[in-house]
C-alpha cells in the first residue's frame, strides 16, 4: 500500500461512517457561523432541532458589520447582527459582536483565538474557509443546508475530493507575495483548474511563507475551484498556535504536538494531480478582468481580442467593455478611482505593514478605505503607528469586517468606478453594481494609491524594503 497524503490523513481521521456511492459522514471539529448563516438557523428552527455541539460552534458578526464610524449602519444590517445574537443566545454558542476585543473577520479571528489548529476539520458557510488550511487543517466552505446539518448533527456528508499538490520551487522575487502566487497559479490553471481537488501547497517558496502569508495563499484556493487548500504544519505553525486562548495547554498540548508531527504527505504518497511552478516566475500580479484567473504581471498589457481565437475573443471583448479597458493598453496606464485594503484575504498585520511601507510619507491621490481584519490587528497597527501612515496619506481608517470585499454592509464601489483592492473576487458587481475591481497585493494597492494608476510597487520601494 502506498503512503498517504496529508489530506488523506485528515480525511481518514474524521470519517464517522461510509455510505454507498462513496459518500462519507465526517465529524466537524469547528463550526464557524456568521450573520449570513440565518437561512440555516431558520431551517433548524423550523425542524425544532437543537445544536449537537454548541461548544464547537463559534459565531462572529463580520459579513454585515459596519466598519466606518462616520456612516450610520443601515437598519437591515443591525437586524442581521441581532438575528445572529438571538440565535447564539437561543442555542448557547459563543458569539462575537463588533465591539468585542476578539472581533474580526471570521477567517482572521479564528486563527487569532487559537480556534484553528492543525489536524482539525473546520467548516463555515463561507467559501474562503479554505484559509484555515494554512495550519494543516481540512477547512472548506459549505452552503446553508449543510450548515443546518452541521448545527444539528456536528457532521457532514462529503464525497472525497481528488488530491492535488501545487509546488512552488525556488524563491519569490522582491515585493512578490502570497497573493501574487495565488493569482499566478489561478491564471495558469483557470478558475476551474483545481475543481474537485483538495490542494496541498508545498515546496521551498511555500515553506518560506509566514503563517499570515500561508493564510492568504490557502484563502484563494476556492478561486481556482479547489474544495480546500492546505499546508503541512511545521515549527512556525506550532509557534503561532501555542499560547492562544483556545489552543490546547499542558498534557493536551503535548498530545497535540505528537499528533501534529504526523501531519505530512508520506514520501511515497500519490497525488491525482501534480503542478510545479517556479517561484521566480511569479511577478507582482493584477487582475484585469471579471474572474480571478484573468490576471497578469503588472508589466503586461491588457489582452487584445484580435490576437485571440474567436472562441475566447468574444468573452474578452465583453470583459473589456465591462472593465472599461482598451485592448493592448499597458496595465500600468490604467487609472484607478479608489482603493480598498481589507478582507479575509489581505487584512492581517503583515499586510498593513506592507501597505504602510509604501505609503509612509506619501499621499494617496485617490480616496480609499483601510479595514484591518480584526480588532487585534487594528490595535497592533495603532501601536505601530500604521493608522497614522494611512490617515496622513488621506485614507480612511476603519474597523474590521468584510466591508467593501462583498458590500453587504453598504460599503460599495460606485458604478463605473475602478477600485484597486486587496480582496479575493473581481466578479461583476461584487463590490457594488457596475464596480470595476482589480485584485492585487496590499503593497500593490498602496502603490496604486500613490500614483493613481496600477503600478509596479517595486519602483516605489527603492530604499524602503
Amino acid at each position, binding site marked *: 500500500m502506498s503512503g498517504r497524503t496529508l489530506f488523506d490523513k485528515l480525511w481518514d481521521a474524521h470519517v*464517522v461512517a461510509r455510505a*454507498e*456511492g*462513496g*459518500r462519507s*459522514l465526517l*465529524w466537524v*471539529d469547528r463550526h464557524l457561523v456568521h450573520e449570513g448563516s*440565518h*437561512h440555516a438557523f*431558520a431551517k433548524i428552527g423550523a*425542524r425544532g432541532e437543537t445544536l449537537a455541539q454548541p*461548544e*464547537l460552534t463559534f459565531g462572529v458578526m463580520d459579513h454585515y458589520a459596519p466598519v466606518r464610524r462616520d456612516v450610520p449602519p443601515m437598519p437591515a444590517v443591525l*437586524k442581521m447582527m441581532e438575528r445572529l445574537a438571538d440565535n447564539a443566545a437561543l442555542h*448557547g454558542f*459563543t458569539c462575537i459582536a463588533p465591539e468585542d476585543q476578539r472581533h474580526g473577520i471570521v477567517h482572521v479571528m479564528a486563527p487569532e483565538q*487559537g480556534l484553528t*489548529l492543525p489536524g*482539525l476539520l473546520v467548516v463555515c458557510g*463561507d*467559501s474562503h474557509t479554505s484559509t484555515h488550511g494554512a495550519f494543516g487543517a481540512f477547512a472548506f466552505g*459549505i*452552503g*446553508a*443546508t449543510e450548515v*443546518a446539518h452541521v448545527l*444539528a*448533527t*456536528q*457532521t457532514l*456528508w462529503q*464525497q472525497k475530493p481528488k488530491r492535488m499538490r501545487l509546488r512552488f520551487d525556488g524563491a519569490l522575487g522582491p515585493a512578490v507575495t502570497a497573493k501574487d502566487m495565488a493569482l499566478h497559479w489561478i491564471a495558469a490553471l483557470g*478558475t*476551474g483548474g483545481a*475543481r*474537485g481537488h483538495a490542494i496541498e501547497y508545498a515546496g521551498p517558496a511555500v515553506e518560506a511563507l509566514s503563517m499570515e502569508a500561508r493564510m492568504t495563499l490557502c484563502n484563494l484556493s*476556492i478561486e481556482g*475551484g479547489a474544495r480546500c487548500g492546505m499546508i503541512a504544519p511545521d515549527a512556525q505553525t506550532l509557534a503561532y498556535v501555542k499560547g492562544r*486562548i*483556545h*489552543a*490546547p*495547554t499542558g*498534557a*493536551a498540548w503535548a*498530545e*497535540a504536538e505528537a*499528533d501534529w508531527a504526523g501531519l505530512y504527505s508520506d514520501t511515497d504518497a500519490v497525488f491525482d494531480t501534480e503542478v510545479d511552478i517556479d517561484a521566480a516566475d511569479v511577478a507582482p500580479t493584477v487582475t484585469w478582468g*471579471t*474572474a480571478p484567473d484573468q490576471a497578469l504581471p503588472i508589466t503586461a498589457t491588457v489582452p487584445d481580442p484580435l490576437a485571440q481565437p474567436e472562441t475566447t475573443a468574444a*468573452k474578452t471583448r465583453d470583459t473589456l467593455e465591462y472593465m472599461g479597458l482598451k485592448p493592448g493598453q499597458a496595465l500600468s496606464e490604467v487609472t484607478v478611482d479608489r482603493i480598498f485594503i481589507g478582507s479575509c484575504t489581505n487584512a492581517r498585520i503583515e499586510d498593513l505593514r506592507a501597505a504602510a511601507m509604501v505609503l509612509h510619507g506619501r499621499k494617496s491621490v485617490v480616496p480609499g478605505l483601510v479595514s484591518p481584519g480584526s480588532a487585534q490587528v487594528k490595535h497592533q497597527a495603532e501601536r505601530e503607528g500604521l493608522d497614522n501612515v494611512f490617515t496622513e496619506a488621506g485614507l480612511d481608517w476603519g474597523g474590521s469586517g468584510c466591508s467593501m470585499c*462583498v*458590500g*453587504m454592509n453598504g460599503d460599495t464601489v460606485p*458604478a463605473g468606478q475602478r477600485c484597486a483592492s486587496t480582496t479575493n473576487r473581481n466578479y*461583476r*458587481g*461584487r463590490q457594488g*453594481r457596475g464596480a470595476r475591481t482589480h485584485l492585487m497585493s496590499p503593497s500593490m494597492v498602496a502603490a496604486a494609491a500613490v500614483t493613481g494608476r496600477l503600478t509596479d510597487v517595486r519602483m516605489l520601494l527603492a530604499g524602503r524594503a
Partner: protein
Amino acid sequence: MRGWTELEGPVVRLPRDGIDTDQLIPARFMSTPRSEGYGDYLLHDLRRGPDGTLDPEFPLNASRGPILIAGADFGTGSSREAAVYALVDAGIRAVLAPSFGDIFAANAANNGLLTVALAEKTLAALRPVLRIDLVSRSIVSGPTSLRFDLDEVTAQKLINGWDDIDLTRAHQDAISAHRETIPAWVWPTCVRGGKGAPP
C-alpha cells in the same frame, strides 16, 4: 421540499461563461428571509437596468422555462445557497452547463435543483423543449435521448426531496462512538460547556 422525477418544458439559454454566484444573486439581497421568495433577485443586475426595469432582450426576461442551459463555470465562487434559491424560486429545476462550481452543485442537490455537466457541443444541439427523467438519467430532445451521470444519493435526494439530517440520524451510534475517540486537544479550551479549562 417536494421531490420530482420527471420534468418537461422549454429551455432558456444563457450563453455566457462564468455566471458566478455574485451575478446569480447580488449580496445586497441576501438578508431577505427565504419565505419572501428569491425569484425576483435571480441575475438581478444582468436582467434589470440601473432603474430596476427589466431588459426585454435578456434571455430570462424574453422567455421562461424550467430548464436553463448556460456557459462554463456556472455557479463558481461564494457558498451562498441564495444563488440556488433564486433559481428555484424563479421556477428553474435543472441547469445544464459544461461545468459548475463545487459548492453550488452541492447546494443545488439540497434544494431540488438538478445540475448536469454536458459538453458545449452537446448542449448546443439540444432542442428548445426537453424532457428530463431522473430515474433513467435521460434527457429527451426530440427523437434523441441522451444519458447523463448522476450519483444515486443525489438522485434520491432530488426524487424524494430528502433531507440529509434524517439520513444522518440512522448513524447516531457511529457519531457517538466517534465522538468518544476524539483526542482531548481537539476540544477548545476556555469555552463554556467545553471539555477544556473553564473560562
